[in-house]
């Protein structure tokens, strides 16, 4: 009975989403405020219904109700409770329900935090989000019902959750990603509402900035968590595989990063308006494309769910409606937007344009590498795969150029920068970062390495150029603390996020160059040595887990005779899935290096093991940088400036329009 109630709640949420799509829109056309006001309660009702549905599905998992098909497929009586909870999104149907719930949550969040926006604008935004909700809920109901039953003969026990997913990282990775993916629907809805209302001025950009940043924060964290999970659970110490589904999350991230920067130009200067709208549409379309790639089963990937053509077709059709519809609207409305351009070749506008072009080019190269095998297959050219060499060859040079421009861009001013002043600002940073970059490989690795030089020059350049701009902004302040406090939170956020980016760059570059790995054959008492560390396999034993049995090795790691760590790598066999073995690596984490030991496979009937030993310097910096970027994003998103006041003209003078360029003291709203 309970699962049927969940299904019923889902149907009600579809009806509420339909109402949310239609009623406020009708209000906008009729100029009826009462109908427009219906948007907020409808958004709340939709979230309540989807929440009930999700709660009832979770209850079915916790109660081991194996008459529900996905509970039988993804759970087991022996599964620990926390994983019964996360098993809800361990398969296609449940994770789609989570997606719908996240969509409803964002919709209500927009409804709640938009009290100060004009009513017709809120009605338009929520109607667009309601339409998206209709699409997602219909997809769930018609192609992927999570409450489907196995009656009249339900199995006695479930097939258990895929062991790869029985991991704390999996608890938060999918929700984070979904909050990111779906969050870009807010920027999309604002863009569509602005086109629809014909109010394509700077204000919509300002309203959507914190939302876009919030979605970007979630996506950043989601991708970083996924990478971290792959590192310790899946990939034998690899942290990025250019797997099509990783790319599916990375493309909206790149486009979303471009969007954040172009929104800044539209907000501050009222420029790039059409471009920003287009980018908002593009970013959300990439999120949908990601969903299509993952759900349709067209890819060879760790993330592939069981293939079902009707699902792929549905999402493809939905993608077509979203992209086609919004581009048509764009074509009809965008030419009406007056465009001004009064900035010189050396200005912040121009540098942000370069940022956008580079990020978009990077997105498109990743997109072509991801879609090429699908296209080749569809055109019967053969079964191709595009591997990491392609992505590294195109992506890394583009990012290097982007980082080089970043340091210049931060130090430029809106409208026009004077070349000699800019040179005076950034030259010390440039010289210092060159010095750091050239010295570092000698000091750390004892030998020259061009990859390390480039990595360290660029990372140091980003940090030092950012700090040069900060110092410049503080030059009139009485003390650095007072000066810092007077700068806008959005500026602090930007500084922190860029430093986070540099941290990630250091992690990626140094790990790639300095990692060492070795596969060795070990028996009890075997020694091995790697990167100055000694590894001793002292014991091989069997350990019983709650729903698995593990072969466990005990490895003593020491450095010059001094003990460093004792690691317990395991090979697990889960009772419900005896055919699927799981490698659980033993990792000694550290800020400057990880030591990673994994049991490969038994040799000679289990007397000996193939063991993989790895030494990975600076690998944690990859995820640490992502965390710092997210913190920067959070600080920027919370800036009060973005919360629209009734009188938009009275804006706090902020850091960007501070003493350095007194020309631009008016807000974009006044410039029109």
């Amino acid at each position, binding site marked *: 009975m309970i699962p049927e109630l969940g299904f019923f709640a889902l149907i009600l949420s579809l009806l509420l989403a339909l109402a949310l799509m239609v009623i406020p829109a009708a209000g906008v056309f009729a100029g009826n405020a009462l109908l427009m006001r219906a948007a907020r309660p409808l958004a709340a009702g939709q979230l309540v219904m989807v929440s009930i549905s999700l709660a009832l599905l979770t209850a079915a998992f916790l109660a081991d109700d194996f008459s529900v098909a996905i509970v039988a497929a993804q759970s087991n009586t022996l599964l620990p409770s926390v994983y019964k909870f996360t098993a809800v999104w361990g398969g296609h149907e449940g994770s789609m329900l989570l997606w719908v719930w996240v969509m409803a949550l964002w919709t209500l969040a927009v409804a709640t935090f938009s009290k100060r926006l004009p009513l017709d604008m809120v009605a338009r935004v929520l109607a667009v989000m309601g339409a998206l909700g209709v699409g997602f809920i219909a997809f769930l109901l018609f192609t992927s019902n999570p409450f489907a039953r196995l009656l009249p003969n339900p199995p006695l026990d479930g097939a258990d959750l895929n062991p790869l997913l029985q991991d704390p990282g999996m608890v938060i990775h999918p929700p984070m990603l979904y909050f990111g993916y779906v969050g870009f629907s807010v920027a999309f809805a604002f863009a569509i509402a602005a086109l629809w209302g014909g109010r394509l001025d700077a204000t919509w950009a300002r309203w959507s900035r914190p939302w876009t940043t919030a979605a970007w924060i979630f996506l950043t964290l989601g991708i970083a968590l996924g990478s971290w999970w792959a590192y310790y659970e899946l990939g034998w110490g690899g942290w990025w595989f250019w797997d099509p589904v990783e790319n599916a999350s990375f493309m909206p991230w790149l486009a979303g990063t471009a969007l954040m920067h172009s929104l800044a130009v539209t907000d501050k200067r009222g420029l790039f308006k059409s471009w920003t709208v287009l980018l908002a549409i593009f970013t959300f379309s990439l999120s949908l494309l990601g969903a299509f790639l993952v759900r349709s089963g067209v890819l*060879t990937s760790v993330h592939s769910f069981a293939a079902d053509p009707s699902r792929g077709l549905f999402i493809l059709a939905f993608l077509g409606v979203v992209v086609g519809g919004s581009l048509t609207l764009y074509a009809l409305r965008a030419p009406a937007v007056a465009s*001004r*351009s009064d900035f010189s070749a050396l200005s912040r506008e121009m540098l942000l344009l370069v940022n956008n072009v*580079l990020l978009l*080019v990077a997105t498109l190269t990743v997109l072509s*590498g991801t879609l*090429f095998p699908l296209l080749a297959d569809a055109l019967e050219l053969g079964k191709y795969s595009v591997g990491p060499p392609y992505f590294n060859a195109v992506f890394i040079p583009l990012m290097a150029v982007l980082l080089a421009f970043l340091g210049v861009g931060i130090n430029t001013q809106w409208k026009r920068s004077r070349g000699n002043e800019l040179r005076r600002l950034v030259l010390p940073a440039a010289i210092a970062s060159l010095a750091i970059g050239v010295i570092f490989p000698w000091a750390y690795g004892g030998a020259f390495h061009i990859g390390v030089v480039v990595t360290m020059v660029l990372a140091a350049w980003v940090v030092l150029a950012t700090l040069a701009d900060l110092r410049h902004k503080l030059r009139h302040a009485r003390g650095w603390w007072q000066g810092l406090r007077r700068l806008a939170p959005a500026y602090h956020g930007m500084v922190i996020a860029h430093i986070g980016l540099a941290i990630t760059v250091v992690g990626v570059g140094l790990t790639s160059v300095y990692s060492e790995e070795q596969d060795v*054959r070990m028996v009890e008492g075997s020694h091995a040595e790697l990167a100055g560390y000694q590894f001793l396999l002292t014991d091989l034993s069997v350990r019983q887990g709650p729903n698995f049995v593990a072969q466990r090795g005990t490895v003593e790691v020491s450095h010059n005779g001094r003990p460093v760590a004792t690691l317990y790598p395991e090979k697990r066999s889960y009772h419900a899935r005896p055919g699927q073995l799981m490698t659980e690596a033993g990792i000694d984490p550290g800020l400057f290096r990880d030591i990673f030991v994994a049991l490969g496979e038994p040799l000679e009937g289990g007397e000996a093991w193939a063991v993989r030993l790895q030494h990975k310097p600076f690998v944690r910096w990859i995820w640490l940088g992502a965390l710092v970027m997210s913190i920067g994003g959070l600080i920027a998103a919370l800036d009060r400036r973005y919360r629209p006041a009734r009188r938009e003209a009275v804006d706090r003078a902020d850091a960007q329009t501070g003493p350095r360029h007194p020309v631009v003291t008016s807000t974009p709203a006044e410039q029109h």
Partner: protein
Amino acid sequence: MHPVRRQRLFIVLLIIAGAGLAVGLASYALRENINLFYPPAEIAEGKAPVGKRIRAGGMVLAGSVQRQPESLTVRFVVTDYQAELPVEYTGILPDLFAEGEGVVATGVLTEDGVFQASEVLAKHDETYMPPEVQHALDRSAEQARP
């Protein structure tokens, strides 16, 4: 030229240059770095190039997995039930590698007809089959029927 127009022209050129860069980079790197998949039947017919990075795959033939003692080198045979291909690999095989299961390997075909794999991918859970292998098996089954 009017300054606004000149600026627009400049922006358009910048975007075109960017798009050109993307296409150029992508097609150059694609030419170098894509790997075509060959089922064992096509390799047996001599359709696959020798000494070039390709992918091959099929089912691991039961009883064919041989480990060399004292090293991590392993030999096995993959089949699409039409032809067989010997594969040699040094290193740790994925968790789900097993006889009678589907695999896809990336590597180089040598003169003597042995596939030197540098990477072996197995399926990711018990019910999943790599699409290439499924396709090769389907085709092989079709050819066997008449």
